[in-house]
């Protein structure tokens, strides 16, 4: 399976997770070079990851530490 417009999200997700081998990464990069709109979409995506803030703890749990 090669990257195309029907499956590129899956390829990019695998690439961001480091799950593509060297050949697959090259295939993806070549595809993105041919599709600059999708390449643009990728910018800054690696920084989009959420950390659970402390306010997600239940009140009882927050109070138990005090």
């Amino acid at each position, binding site marked *: 399976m090669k990257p195309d417009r029907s*499956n590129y*999200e*899956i390829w*990019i*997700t*695998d690439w961001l997770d480091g799950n593509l081998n060297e050949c697959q990464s090259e295939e993806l990069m070549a595809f993105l070079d041919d599709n600059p709109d999708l390449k643009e*979409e990728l*910018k*800054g*995506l690696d*920084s*989009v*990851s*959420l*950390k*659970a*803030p402390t306010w*997600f*703890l*239940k*009140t009882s*749990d927050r109070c138990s530490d005090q």
Partner: protein
Amino acid sequence: MTVKEYNRSVQEFSDSVYRFILGNLKDEDRADDIVQDTWEKLWRNLTEIEYPVVRSWLFKTAYRTMIDIIRKESRMTRIEESDYHDFLSETQYSDLNEILHLALDRLPEHQRSLVLLRDYEGYSYREISEISGMTEAQVKINLYRGRVALRNFIVKIESVI
């Protein structure tokens, strides 16, 4: 599963299930109700559920209960242009994680749940697939689209600042 294992499950997974639901709904009362309902369902099905799979069973059950409620309430929100200005008019946000959480609230519910399962709970795509009922490919596609929407929100915030 034994009663002892049930009690152990409550001890180990109660907080993470609650955090997942609260992260989606931002409503403590409704999150409490859904988590309570999930534990009751587990209790009723105690003999049919093995302890090794209880964590994903709990998340799956809580997730589906929540989705049913959301759909009933037609609570679907999307990122809209005016939102960026509303946020900025109220407060200045400097912390990326805080901005991401504001954006998270405006994702479609199915994308928001996937981001929380992946980023908060560290579930694999296969596990998220089992919990959400989506295929692994659908999970990856929706996660990617959710992250693009979150990134776009950050970019718009920065452009307004």
